[in-house]
Every structure is written in structure tokens, then in C-alpha cells.
């Protein structure tokens, strides 16, 4: 399963309670629309850490990295590369 699909699956299950009728495309603003709230952000951080085996530094917890499935996917790919080089 692609990174985007894994992230989407998590968001639908945990933030939308399985409701697939809510519009959720790859560019939907997750924070600005309230799909992800403050607790959801912490859950997402934990999910990404565990699902992709990544450590997310506090300084990376920015809206730019978290506000859509596309941005999350880009961030995860970038962290995978950084982690591999470390």
C-alpha cells in the first residue's frame, strides 16, 4: 500500500470514525477544516512514528507538514530519506 493510502486509511478510521462520506482528497486541508484537531495531531505523530519507523523531531511539527495527505506523504518520504542517511 502506498504511503498516501496508509495515511488516508488512518485518518478515515481515527479522525472520521470510518465515515467515508466526508470529502477527503489528497489536498484537503486537514487542520483548517478541523478533520484533525489537537488530539488528532498527537495521534498522527504516533501513527507516523510507528507505521513508518520514523522519529519526528518537535521542530518538524508544522502545519506545512501536516495539513494534507499530500504534504504528510511528502514529509514521510523526506524523513525516510533523512533517516536512511543518518
Amino acid at each position: 500500500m502506498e504511503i498516501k493510502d496508509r495515511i488516508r486509511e488512518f485518518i478515515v478510521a481515527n479522525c472520521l470514525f470510518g465515515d467515508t462520506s466526508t470529502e477527503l482528497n489528497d489536498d484537503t486541508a486537514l487542520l483548517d477544516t478541523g478533520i484533525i484537531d489537537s488530539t488528532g495531531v498527537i495521534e498522527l505523530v504516533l501513527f507516523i512514528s510507528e507505521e513508518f519507523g520514523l522519529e519526528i523531531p518537535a521542530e518538524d511539527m508544522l502545519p506545512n507538514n501536516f495539513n494534507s495527505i499530500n504534504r504528510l506523504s511528502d514529509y514521510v518520504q523526506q524523513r525516510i530519506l533523512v533517516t536512511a542517511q543518518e
Partner: protein
Amino acid sequence: MQFGSHVLIIDPEVETAQIITMMRQTIQHDFRRKGAIVGLSGGVDSATVLGLAVKAYGPERVLAVMMPEQDSSPVSEQYAAQMAETYGVTAITEDLTAGLAGFDCYGRRDDAVRSVFPDYDPSQDEIKLVLPTDLLDRGSLNVYSLSLSRPGGEERKRVLPVAAYLQIVAASNMKQRSRMLMLYYHAEQRNYAVIGTANRNEHAQGFFVKYGDGGADIQPIQHLYKTQVYQLAHYLGVTPEIIKRTPTTDTYSAECSQEEFYFRLPFEQMDLIWYGLDNQIPAADVAAALQISAQQVENVYRDLSQKSRSTEYLRSKPLMVR
């Protein structure tokens, strides 16, 4: 006139008159209560509300209740007692430590802390929850870290996992809910009403505990920005020690300012930016008034909007089907 801090200036005399009119009408005529109970924390909000209650009902119809527990700063009770004495109000102390221990508030919290720092020793270590400090410059998300400080100066900080975060908050919220329980005991015993002390910042951004400090019969300063509460405090003669004191949560064993726990900005900056958001002022105009960049203002606009939206649940009343 150019946008600036003057928009937050109130006429304290007029404001006080309006508030006490509402307080008298509501408590004495609508609710038919004989007086008022104020939970006095040693902070500026409750001191200001006590001053308003004294003006509305007279000191003989007001009771101040101080409710420390083991993590409270000792100066909080001292400042609160001085305030009550200045206003000529009877003040009583209800130490909540034993009750909270009975609920296992501290044990539940400490278990969650140990899940993050296994060597945590509550007999010597001090903890607090903090948010990132770079809201203005980077607009970082509200992800809490647990900070632990040990005698000797050792300090550690870790981002909190969800389960630990929720358990620490849930256990700590027992403190505010126990305070509400105690306030209503004294209120019902005297046929008084409970006067809340939440300001606009706390209410709209969700910095309160539902059915805890959010549980009251009226909220006389809920419409005022924090900087406006300070203006009232000066007018009402709140003691200098309380006015000069940095607002704290007084909830965790380590000293924790409200800025580092929740608001992430000094009140002078936040109130003006928030006023700008409330009144659709362009970010550039607010930025010019504060001598910061428009992007920094946008970062705060976004944070305020998200906090307000994500805490709507706290402000909602129990909903009915019909």
C-alpha cells in the same frame, strides 16, 4: 485612526457598572440567591471577580473559598487571603489534597508520567506540560511535551504520546472539578450562587475544564480580554502582588505559566492579534501595530482559529434530541 492597542482600552468605571448591574439582576432577581461564592486562586481573574462581587452584593454577602492542593504554590493562598482581607470578605480554606488523593488523582497522573520517564520520582521531581514556544515565527502545531526537572538542575523534555497526554490531563482536571464541587457545597449551604472567573481568552480558546472551572452560575468577565481584566483589576484595587504576578496554571508540580502551557504568547501581543481576528482586521495592519511581520500574525490567526474550533465541545451544553 490607525489600528493599535487603544482598541483594547475600556472605561473601567462604566464596565464595572454594567457588570454589577448584570450580576445583581441575575443572582438576586433571576436566580433568587442571597449572595455569591468566589473561588479565590491568588490570580488576577478571581481577584477581579471578587472585587466585582463585593461591589454588586457587599462584602457581607460574599464568601471567598481558597482551595489549595499539594501542587499549589504557597504564595497563591497567601495572595488570595490578602485580597479577601483587603475587600473585607470572609475567606475560608478547603485543602483538596486528601480528597484528590482519595480519587487517586496524583497516582493516575504519576503512572502516566512514568510511562514517559520511567525513573520519575514524584517526591523530588517536578513536572509540567508545555507547548512549543515558536508560534510567532514558525506557527508550529499544539503538540504537548512533558518537562521534568530534578533537584540539581537536570531537565528533560519529551513529546507526549497520546495515551499519556490524555491521562495526565484527565487526572489533573480532577483538581478543577473538585473545586467546583466544593464551591457548590458552600453555595448550596448558604443559598448563594457560584461566580465564575473565566476571561475571554480562557473561554474562547478552551483553556478551562468542562464542569470544572467552567462550572458556574454566571461568568461576569468572560467577555473581556485578559489585558482588559488587568484594567478592571487596577480600578477595583486588586493588590499589586497579584497584578504583577505572572499568570500560572498552578496545577503541575513545576511552576508553569499560562503562556507556556496554552497561550504561547504574551497577553499584550495575543489580545491585539485576537482582536484583529475577531474584527477581520487585515494581518498587515495588526503586524504594523505590533512591529512584527504579517506572516507572524497569520500564524497566530491560524492557531487561535484552530484552538477555538477544536474546543467547541467544551463550550457546548448537553444537547437533546428534541
